[in-house]
């Protein structure tokens, strides 16, 4: 075991839930990090401290608590800017999560900029939150939704993109930087340069990327970028939408209410400055503050170290899983093109049954369609089992998983 691995094991003591036992006194092995991650004391304490010492509504009042709360809230905006390299903090909008971020774009950008027979391009391996909003929008507008296909290694077929771009009707290309089912890392650079050449905007769903590797939005050069706090040690209820100013300035508000207005009159209203124009009502203030603590925690470890740790775990798991008879792994074996997510099927055993049996051993893995039914159709399966890693996972936990899969084999007489 390498030394970086050892230092990662120290991390576990920061996560109180990892001391839990589940079912019949089994140690918890949490391998569903693509769904949501556990929270370190540092994040839990930041939320607690906010409520115990600084709680107030933000932006509007002059008293001491409101001043403190506003400062804590706005500090997170700076931390986000720092994390994904954004120069202008006013481009960062706080939302509930990736889902709300993408819906905000569909409503506040899409409804004004999409016309009949225009095309929005997504991919076959998107999460439902990067498909359904576009189905709703294109249906409303009489526009079309098209899909970049995926090859058998789980990589996007960029010829499809060329084909759609050639029509001259594409208004937006949207794709996830890392697939939440296959772990595939998209070739964002190539996609974006093609789109830029065609004058087409791009949206990146960074939900599975930002938690796990260094992401530089400025360098990527996309126009919209979305991710969720709860998938990177942060609280539920907070996510980020970043939009390039030149695009943001062409957008009408999404939700109306407090904080997003400049002047309200009975029959007309003017909007607040960016980004507040897009943050209506009382936001998840404590969650924003907790998310700031999560970013601090991750940056202290270092995003490159996190990626390295996950490469080690994923390589180890791929190797071990491959040796289980009858187990089929989806996606590429090229670790440089894959995040810490592995989907598989085990002989004819349904993923639900696999998940339930390993759960009996204290091991939390996901089974189902992973909110990616279009991809399930493409893979021609109803569901897969999925394990996904984060900073606190260890090789020992992978060994436990392999053991419990042997139990599945025994029960199902494989």
């Amino acid at each position: 075991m390498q030394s970086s691995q050892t230092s990662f094991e120290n991390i576990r003591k920061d996560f109180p839930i990892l001391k839990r036992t589940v079912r019949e006194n089994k140690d918890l092995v949490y391998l569903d990090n693509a769904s949501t991650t556990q929270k370190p004391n540092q994040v839990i304490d930041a939320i607690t401290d906010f409520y115990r010492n600084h709680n107030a509504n933000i932006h509007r009042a002059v008293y001491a608590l409101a001043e403190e709360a506003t400062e804590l809230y706005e500090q997170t905006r700076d931390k986000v800017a720092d994390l994904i390299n954004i120069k202008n903090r006013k481009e960062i909008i706080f939302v509930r999560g990736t889902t709300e971020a993408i819906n905000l774009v569909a409503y506040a950008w899409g409804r004004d900029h999409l016309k009949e027979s225009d095309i929005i391009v997504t991919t076959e391996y998107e999460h439902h939150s990067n498909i359904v909003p576009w189905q709703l929008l294109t249906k409303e507008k009489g526009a079309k939704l098209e899909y970049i296909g995926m090859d058998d290694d789980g990589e996007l077929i960029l010829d499809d993109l060329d084909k759609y771009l050639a029509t001259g009707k594409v208004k937006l290309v949207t794709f996830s930087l890392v697939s939440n089912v296959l772990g595939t890392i998209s070739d964002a650079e190539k996609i974006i340069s093609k789109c830029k050449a065609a004058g087409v905007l791009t949206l990146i769903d960074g939900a599975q990327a930002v938690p796990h590797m260094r992401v530089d939005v400025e360098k990527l050069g996309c126009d919209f970028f979305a991710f969720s706090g709860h998938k990177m040690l942060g609280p539920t209820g907070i996510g980020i939408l970043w939009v390039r100013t030149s695009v943001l300035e062409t957008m009408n508000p999404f939700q109306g209410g407090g904080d997003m207005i400049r002047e309200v009159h009975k029959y007309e209203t003017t909007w607040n400055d960016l980004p507040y124009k897009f943050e209506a009502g009382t936001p998840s203030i404590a969650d924003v503050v907790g998310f700031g603590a999560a970013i601090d925690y991750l940056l202290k470890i270092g995003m490159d170290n996190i990626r390295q740790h996950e490469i080690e775990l994923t390589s180890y798991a791929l190797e071990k899983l491959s040796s289980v008879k009858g187990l089929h792994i989806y996606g590429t074996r090229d670790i440089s093109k894959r995040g810490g997510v592995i989907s598989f099927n085990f002989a004819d055993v349904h993923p639900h049954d696999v998940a339930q049996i390993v759960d009996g051993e204290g091991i939390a893995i996901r089974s189902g369609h992973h909110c990616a039914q279009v991809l399930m159709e493409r893979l021609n399966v109803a569901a897969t089992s999925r394990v996904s890693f984060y900073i606190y996972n260890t090789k020992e936990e992978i060994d436990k998983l392999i053991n419990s899969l042997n139990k599945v084999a025994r029960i199902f007489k494989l």
Partner: protein
Amino acid sequence: MSNADIYHEMIIDYSRNPINYGKIEDHDVTFHDSNPLCGDSIDIDMKFNDNKVSDIKFHGKGCAICMACSSVLTEIVKGKEIDEVRNISKNDILSELGLEHLQAVRIKCALLSLKVLKSALYSYLGKHLKDSQDVDTLKEEAANLY
């Protein structure tokens, strides 16, 4: 009940060799539904004769529990009076397989076929029933299944 205990011989057998699996080409009613959370999906076809379910078949994709419960359900239903079928309860299915204490998420797997069955029946009776109150009762019955 421990997780592994759920997977007794009978469940595994039914899941590998489901009973009444398939389609009925000249069905009187057919219905499809799926479990939004996991993607399990079931179709049920039925034929009626003399107020009885003269034939029933199911097909679809699902876990061992879903498949076993669908098999048991169709076995119970086949040949029964329509009114008897309407009275089949969750527990009639679950107890047959010793699944009374299944956790909430899996209950939905176990009862998907029962939901499809009742919906199919509702859709059939809706077309043949005179008494609209009866339809409402049935509709509510179906809605309250989960």
